[in-house]
């Protein structure tokens, strides 16, 4: 195991900021590889694993792009600035620096964004016994796992990321990996990216 790499992932070592970004970049590429190869998996897409990969990808991307909230993936460091609200970020809210927050409306998924049951819509539903009343609300067997977004996700990365990988070899010589990113408008401007990742 590469000790330097591991320490970078934990935020230790000299030149920490640079190592963070390189490490984050590496994790982004590993994660994308996993998402891509998950398509051909026997037994269909594993929702749990792909959700975890997408969460890692999102954290690494934030660090790599220097977005607010990127620090949430790393151990806290002493001194200013004050730590971001990691709890809100973990709940899936967009970082407060987004335009939506600027409009004064924090974008948070509802605490329990669930389908409302018949029982909750109708207070007179009565005794909550083990009645098979809800089989009519059962999702039909042909319900889609909603993994169709994977196809668009892959096509997004097919163009944007291979370009980034091409620059990767130059990144080691670049003074600031962030600059590489700026030359790739695909990543910065690609708002659907952050949502497409989670859409498994």
């Amino acid at each position, binding site marked *: *195991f*590469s000790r330097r*790499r*591991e320490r970078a*992932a*934990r*935020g230790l070592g000299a030149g920490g900021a640079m190592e963070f970004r390189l*490490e984050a970049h590496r*994790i982004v590429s*590993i994660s994308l590889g*996993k998402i891509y190869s998950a398509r051909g998996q*026997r*037994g*269909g897409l*594993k*929702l*749990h694993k792909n*959700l*975890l990969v997408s*969460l*890692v990808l999102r954290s*690494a991307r934030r*660090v790599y792009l220097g977005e607010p909230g990127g620090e*949430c*993936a*790393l*151990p*806290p460091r002493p001194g200013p600035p004050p730590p971001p609200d990691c709890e809100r970020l*973990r709940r*899936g809210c967009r970082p407060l620096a987004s335009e939506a927050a600027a409009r004064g409306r924090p974008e948070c*998924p509802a605490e*329990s*964004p*669930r*389908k409302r*049951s018949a*029982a909750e819509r109708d207070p007179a539903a009565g005794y*909550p*016994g*083990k*009645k*098979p*009343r*809800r*089989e009519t*609300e*059962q*999702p039909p*067997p*042909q*319900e*889609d*796992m*909603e993994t169709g*977004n994977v196809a668009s996700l892959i096509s997004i990365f097919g163009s944007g990321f291979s370009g980034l990988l091409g620059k990767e070899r130059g990144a080691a010589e670049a003074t600031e990996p962030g600059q590489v990113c700026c030359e790739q408008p695909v990543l910065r401007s690609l708002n659907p990216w952050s*949502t*497409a990742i*989670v*859409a*498994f």
Partner: protein
Amino acid sequence: TSALLEVVTDIISTVEFNHTGELLATGDKGGRVVIFQREPESKNEPYNQGEYNVYSTFQSHEPEFDYLKSLEIEEKINKIKWLPQQNAAHSLLSTNDKTIKLWKVTERDKRPEGYNLKDEEGKLKDLSTVTSLQVPVLKPMDLMVEVTPRRIFANGHTYHVNSISVNSDCETYMSADDLRINLWHLAITDRSFNIVDIKPANMEDLTEVITASEFHPHHCNLFVYSSSKGSLRLCDMRASALCDKHSKLFEEPEDPSNRSFFSEIISSVSDVKFSHSGRYMLTRDYLTVKVWDLNMETKPIETYQVHDYLRSKLCSLYENDCIFDKFECAWNGSDSVIMTGAYNNFFRMFDRNTKRDVTLEASRESSKPRAILKPRRVCVGGKRRKDDISVDSLDFTKKILHTAWHPTENIIAIAATNNLYIFQDKVNSEMH
């Protein structure tokens, strides 16, 4: 300690003792179930006392293809749960990703002989040779074990089933997939009752999935499910029909000094088990096992490090996918010792009373009969003893994900890839 080694041709994916410990079932990636039976102890053959031998083998699930979604459905057996025995037959539930099946296991050791119209081979007799009538009698025969599918619970799950649990009422059971939990009646296959649904209205808002679930051993209205975020939710089916609102939420705040890119992954709970007493819950996440008291939601009462030396290797373990391994955990019969698997064919036991822990290895050397299992040690730098293994020489392809403990005795079943090890502690056979 004595050991038995059975080689199953496919990778074992689940191991489960029945309620008396007389039977042990294993499921594998090929959809097969193998049931072992413990030999009754007899004075005639003292060396065979209490050993497990193959009792029955059957094909539970076959690979299927969902043509609508163009998806192959794996035949791998994810879980087996035994029903409490109610008559001479044994029953078990087995499940793959989509379909749960109820199997009945019966013995036949007698067969009728002396039919009037048929001869010994079953061919019809020439009626002119029949001069007198006889009553057929039951004669003993070689034991035959028959396994028949009694119920097939299909089309209940859109996502992959990760756990099943039989209720203490012995009439119902639940099955959980990534986003939903269904309640079934054991006699009814054409409908189930959805009791938990955490699917968000917009899948893009998905942040956590269900990872495991279990009914309380005594209270038929209570069950727990664990999440990929490391939380446990205790639900009461009497409170409401849809148990989206938990009765209790068990969650430990994250330690900020341990934060990394992989904090979320390693906090995902891979297994949850109620203690036999029903008072505690045991959870396994990637690096620890934790004991929770049902009366305290803020944090576990005990935390045991399984292999903390891996904490600095998480990036590599992410790369080689090991970080996604789902380890199970188990209680012993008296809830005083907990057990879980690790890498390099190691498994760990923690004594809750003495706070002592031990690392043991399931290997061919250790499986010689009456061999004593030697404790192993992983050294993380510093002084290295003679038989220590260094972290870097651990074999991460040899993982013990599935373990089971006999309900009352010191007998454990360890699945190491495609080998099943059964270890018995003859000296301390009875629970203290």
